[in-house]
């Protein structure tokens, strides 16, 4: 038998009165349970979205594919676009590109990246850098959410968005084939929220038989092997290889961890830099450094036929337009040295590159970060 209502309590008598449900300890328990349920559902959806993403990563290796896609990317103030015919199988990939100007091919045979154009007759191969996916790192720095359903290339897909946990615009939008998990469409947004690349399959077949010969360069082609590292070095090993003490940046954006060090070769000058590579699970940050040489001191860029970087507005850079740099100083320079100074930022949309002439080192940082972050990184090296 239910107890009689307490004196002073409003509402109906014993039973399922609505007012009783909304007051007192029972209401608090119900609200807490609802909140827990909502949280669980949200977490489940987030976990499901991440699961879909990791499935798509393994699908790319598992599933054999032939199809056509359209791709577009922003480089600085230009937009590049092309179509490509795709073959993928056993973790290998071949893209036969066609744009309005030319055709070329890119092959990832699992150990090398090979680029060649029919009109050049030479293939360029570089070691394929392999980075083990750190899922924990990616999930720590980014959140994933399911964004709906659609159709791409005539196939039903699930849309997923990935965005930084620290706040900011969406980084990735992915449309995943519901049957295979394969990514049929993707959009990449930069740190400023701008769409910087988009790729979409226009036709696709799964489970096709792909001949291994597709991933092999024709025998009569000349291959130019480029240097490149396939495994990373520690900072001390890197210092030994490049012959100077490599300085780690004292500032690195939150969420990024050191992935390793690499020797970076400059094709044009033959110089060598020490590169430290960082990742936040999805994005890469490269910070390269080399010691300043004699030809970094006092030589105008115009001597080498190009524009002079950085040293404008009276701050830094003692030379101009072909002069040797001794004695002719910019107004407001004030330091009495003819050395190159300053920073030049190349904003390519998908990433930014900042080159900095420090006192002892030339530092370059490349990544999809704000200008301010890049300035902090390079100035924390020298």
């Amino acid at each position, binding site marked *: 038998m239910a107890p009689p209502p307490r004196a002073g309590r409003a509402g109906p008598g014993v039973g399922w009165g609505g007012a009783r449900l909304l007051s007192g300890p029972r209401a608090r328990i119900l609200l807490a349970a609802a909140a827990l349920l909502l949280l669980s559902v949200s977490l489940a959806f987030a976990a499901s979205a991440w699961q879909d993403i990791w499935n798509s990563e393994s699908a790319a290796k598992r599933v054999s594919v032939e199809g056509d896609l359209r791709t577009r990317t922003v480089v600085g103030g230009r*937009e590049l676009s092309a179509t490509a015919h795709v073959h993928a199988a056993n973790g290998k990939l071949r893209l036969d590109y066609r744009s309005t100007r030319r055709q070329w091919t890119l092959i990832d045979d699992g150990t090398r990246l090979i680029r060649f154009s029919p009109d050049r007759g030479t293939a360029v191969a570089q070691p394929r850098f392999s980075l083990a996916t750190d899922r924990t790192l990616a999930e720590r720095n980014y959140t994933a959410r399911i964004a709906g359903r659609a159709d791409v290339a005539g196939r039903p897909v699930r849309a997923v968005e990935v965005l930084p946990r620290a706040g900011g615009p969406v980084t990735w939008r992915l449309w995943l084939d519901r049957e295979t998990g394969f990514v049929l469409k993707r959009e990449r947004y930069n740190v400023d929220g701008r769409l910087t690349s988009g790729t979409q399959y226009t036709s696709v077949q799964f489970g096709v038989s792909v001949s291994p010969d597709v991933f092999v360069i024709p025998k009569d082609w000349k291959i130019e092997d480029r240097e490149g590292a396939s495994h990373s070095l520690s900072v001390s090993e890197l210092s030994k290889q490049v012959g100077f003490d490599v300085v780690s940046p004292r500032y690195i954006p939150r969420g990024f961890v050191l992935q390793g060090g690499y020797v970076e070769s400059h094709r044009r000058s033959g110089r060598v830099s020490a590169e430290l590579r960082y990742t936040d699970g999805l994005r890469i940050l490269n910070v390269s450094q080399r010691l300043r040489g004699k030809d970094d001191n006092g030589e105008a860029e115009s001597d080498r036929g190009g524009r002079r970087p950085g040293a*404008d507005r009276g701050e830094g*850079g003692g030379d101009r337009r072909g002069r040797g740099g001794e004695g002719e100083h910019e107004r407001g320079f004030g330091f009495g040295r003819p050395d190159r100074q300053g920073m030049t930022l190349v904003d390519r949309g998908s990433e930014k590159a900042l080159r900095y002439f420090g006192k002892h080192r030339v530092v370059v940082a490349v990544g999809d970060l704000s200008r301010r972050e890049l300035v902090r990184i390079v100035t924390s090296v020298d």
Partner: protein
Amino acid sequence: MDREANDLAGLVARARSGDVGAFESLYHSLQAGMYSFIRSQVREAELAADLTQQTFVRAWESLPRLRQDGAFVGWLHRIAANLVRDEIKSGHARLEIAASDVLDDPLPDQRATSPEEAAVFQGLKAAVWAALGQLPPDQRAAVVMHHMEGMSVTEIAQAMKCRPGTVMSRLSRAREALRRRLSSYVEDSDAEM
């Protein structure tokens, strides 16, 4: 090695304890952005320089009141905005800039490699600043902070004490207006498709 010694928040902390050298480093890191921000709001270059000076002096004096070292840049912008507002109220400044004002900018541009190129570039710069001068002050401030100081939308929102959506709205309206006003330059530049 103190990891934060050389980043902005570290410099702010050192400046707070009276380190003038750290404050000088802060000045050099931020002066171009602050000067551009102030210059976009007042008519004369000399007044902008004076207000820039006052901004940093006031920041030095008020540093103990800054609660978060990481909020220094936004806080500095608010000091500058208050000083500009005071100047306008006193009738000493007007919120407009003319192309000729920018041509009086004391430091010449050295990116050009020939006098002709320098003249072209100076003309472009003057046209951009003149076009900026015709925007409402809030839009102008957002454009300078975003395009010239490299601040993110979130950082601008913190500095202007508004929502990121409001910043986006100001940037997009400004972009539309500037696209029309700079049409001759926009349509002349190369764009590879």
